[in-house]
């Protein structure tokens, strides 16, 4: 009778005597003293054969609004390219070069750091929005400090940093359309003859104000570790340095050349679109695999496909850009520049994979080596230093990304899950 009751309640045989006793007490009202004895008596004298168990891994929540986020990013890149000429007219070519050399690494560093600590977490953007005083102080400092140091050049650098960082807050906070609309309107105004510096100031102030007025979350999210966020910020800054470190490139001074960045950015965004599934794939690849078996490298497949998509898209879009964007340099120089930007998209993808696997230290070292090579490379031809620096970074990053993904069990158990 007891055995039938226990099996009926569980829909299977009890795991052990304690489970049988718990069922007898909870669902049959048998007092614990008797339930324990009955539970023991229910277990077979000779144990059954072991049955395989499969730990299912819950599907990750779908990432919504990805297309909208990519669109907002594309608008931002194109707008930045179109702002180049009016800004150069205001602060000079050297001034714009310096402003971008400051703003790009700084903004990328902030974006990576904030993403690690807040934005990559569920409700993280809304939780960050709760820190309004800190965000306002940060935006103020980002504009005031470079302005005091460098005057108009610093002001442009600060405003661009606020614009791109605030844009990230809006895009990740679900207001990508608001950001894209504001940038489009401001760009149209500038192209229509509005003073570039004033338009940039109004746009940056608008984006900052909208970012500060985002709804706060009632959810409690524990932010990421400071040391990891700082490491991510350093990775972002080094990627920015790689982008602006090759002085031979004219892309930061002319609008046409700046548009050459679009293929690599679009390719990078498209290529890494599925990378958010990587942690899930790592654990899913272990599901149903016995302790003595070797799991398949599903996660490696995700990385491979991401790299293939990035390279294919960068190649295709670069060929289009090479023909469509007005040319001010030789064909070879343009090809080298596009190659450099494409390689940088691959570097960014690999860096994000390694950072998510908790290998920030190695990523920093690889990017540092790449940036050093870029700076030290002889200026033999335009874009050559960027190609050399990015290539070195890829050579160092690629094996470091492949290795852990080939050993998903070890990587998950001893790395990802032991932060």
């Amino acid at each position, binding site marked *: 009778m007891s055995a039938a009751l226990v099996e009926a309640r*569980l829909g299977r045989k*009890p*795991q*052990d*005597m*304690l*489970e049988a006793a*718990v*069922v007898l*007490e*909870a*669902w*049959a*009202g048998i*007092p*614990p*003293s008797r339930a*324990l004895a009955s539970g*023991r008596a229910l*277990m*077979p*004298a*000779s*144990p*059954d*054969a*072991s*049955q*395989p*168990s*499969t*730990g*299912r*891994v819950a599907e990750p929540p779908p990432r919504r609004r990805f297309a909208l986020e990519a669109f907002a990013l594309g608008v931002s890149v194109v707008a930045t390219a179109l702002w180049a000429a009016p800004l150069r007219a205001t602060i000079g070519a050297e001034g714009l070069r310096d402003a971008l050399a400051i703003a790009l690494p700084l903004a990328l560093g902030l974006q990576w750091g904030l993403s690690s600590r807040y934005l990559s977490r569920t409700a993280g953007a809304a939780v960050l929005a709760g820190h309004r005083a800190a965000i306002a102080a940060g935006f103020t400092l980002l504009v005031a400090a470079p302005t005091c140091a460098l005057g108009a050049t610093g002001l442009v650098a600060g405003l661009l940093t606020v614009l791109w960082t605030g844009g990230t807050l809006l895009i990740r906070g679900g207001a990508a359309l608001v950001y894209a609309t504001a940038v489009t309107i401001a760009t149209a105004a500038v192209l229509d003859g509005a003073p570039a510096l004033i338009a940039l100031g109004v746009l940056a102030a608008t984006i900052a104000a909208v970012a500060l007025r985002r709804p706060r979350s009632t959810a*409690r*999210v*524990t932010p*990421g*570790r400071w*040391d*990891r966020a700082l490491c991510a910020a350093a990775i972002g800054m080094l990627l920015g340095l790689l982008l602006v470190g090759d002085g031979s490139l004219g892309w930061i001074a002319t609008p046409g050349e700046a548009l050459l960045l679009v293929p690599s950015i679009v390719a990078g965004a498209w290529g890494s679109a599925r990378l958010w599934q990587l942690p899930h794939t790592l*654990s*899913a690849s*272990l*599901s*149903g*695999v*016995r*302790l*003595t078996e070797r*799991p398949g490298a599903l996660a490696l497949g995700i990385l491979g496909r991401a790299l293939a998509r990035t390279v294919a898209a960068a190649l295709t879009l670069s060929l289009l850009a090479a023909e469509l964007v007005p040319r001010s340099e030789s064909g070879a120089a343009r090809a080298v520049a596009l190659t450099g930007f494409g390689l940088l998209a691959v570097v960014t993808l690999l860096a994000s994979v390694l950072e998510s696997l908790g290998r920030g230290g190695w990523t920093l070292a690889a990017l540092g080596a790449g940036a050093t090579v870029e700076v030290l490379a002889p200026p033999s031809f335009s874009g050559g230093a960027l190609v050399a620096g990015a290539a070195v970074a890829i050579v160092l990053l690629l094996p470091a990304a492949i290795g852990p993904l080939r050993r998903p*069990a*070890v990587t*998950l*158990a*001893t*790395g990802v*899950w*032991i*932060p």
Partner: protein
Amino acid sequence: MPERRTRVLLTTEGTYPHELGGVSSWCDLIVRELTEFDWLVLPVIAPHGRPPLYELPSHARALPPIEVWSERRPRRERRVRVETDIPAVLARELLGWEGATDAVVGAWLRCRRSPAGVREAFRSRRAWAAYLEALGEVLGERIPEAGTPPELDLVEAAELYQTLYWIARTAAAPTPAVDVLHATAAGWSAIPAAVHRALHGTPMVVTEHGVFVRETYLAAVRRGESAGRRFTATRLARGLTRVAYASADVVAPVTDANAHWETGLGLDPAKILVVYNGLGHAGEPTPPPARQRVVSVGRIDPLKDIHTMLRAAAATLELVPDARFEHYGLVTPGEEAYGRSCELLHQRLGLGDRFRFMGRTSDPLGVVRGADVVLMTSISEGLPMAILEAMGEGRPVVATAVGGVPDVVRGCGIVTAPVREREIALALTTLLRNPDLAARLGRIGHRRLGRLFNQAACVGGYRELLHAAGAGRDGASRPALRVAA
């Protein structure tokens, strides 16, 4: 020179002072009432960013919580000792049916001596390989009463490895110098206490409100997880409980029913001292409202079996159409799906306004006072405060025979088998149709509360226990703790 006050380290897990609930209320009562002790409260919690819900009195101090499943790293050390056998030892001895509890404590002591080494050890490939080997040994055990372990897959093994890491991190957490250790469950909260006791010989008391192992089994059964996850969760709970029992000088269950489980799990009966929960004695009870009103108070949680409560209500309403049911309490965090299933069942049974979910109440005594009968349909309980509150207000109880409920509701209500909605409905109908009987049972309960389950006796029991435990501090010989099975 004034005598130094006895310092008590109260270790909690997921309860006081960060969460509301029965255990937290009990902790708050003990800490507030026992003013002669200096209390240090050490919570083990998963990080949630919320501030504590309880404000501690001046003679108590909250220590920084031990955060598990967080991203926080252990403090840096000059000389890190990386002992890669620790995961394997924990797997073998915590999960093994006959694992050695002293080996677990030994491994925990090594974690305590080099907290930074714990992370390094668990991150090493050698530790993972040794762990898999040890886990294979455990899965190969064939002991009749232990059943046959399932063949785990790698994802289940990795999840267990991560849990063992957090157990090791909990063991590695520092504890302050104290005279008595008081763990509030024979689970995670007992880990820092067991380590401290092994290091310093400080006497250790464990209070069990529910039975940690039993509740873990119940949770595993109702979650319907894979056989591997069920196996690892329950075996770990059993392993932690065995270590807690082996380390404790006294285990103080809140009801005799828990004591049966404890002895069944191998605890020496000489270590058991039952200290009943208690309630401040109310004045003379007010007459029942005579409105056929049935009230229940508790979380909306599978352990409370709200489904049976709804079905019992529907069955009762067939016989007593004027009856009205009110349930006070919120859905347990993480059990939102169960909460939705209760709403769906409520709709399907067509209960409408005749059974209302009232949400949280800040006045549990007031809502009980407004009841003619108090209902409880749990499948797991220790000594539920809701029943004591009903007794305090002189209201009869219909409750399921689980845990300490039959011992409490003796002569002051009707006890039924769990899950049997028809039996429960019959008991409710009996009391609703016989108000004289209901009133008499309520009066008996009120008297019984004052005699057996009063707050003064509960607090006094712990006062005596903690004084006895702390009597041997500063090297003086400690009198043996007086315990009774």
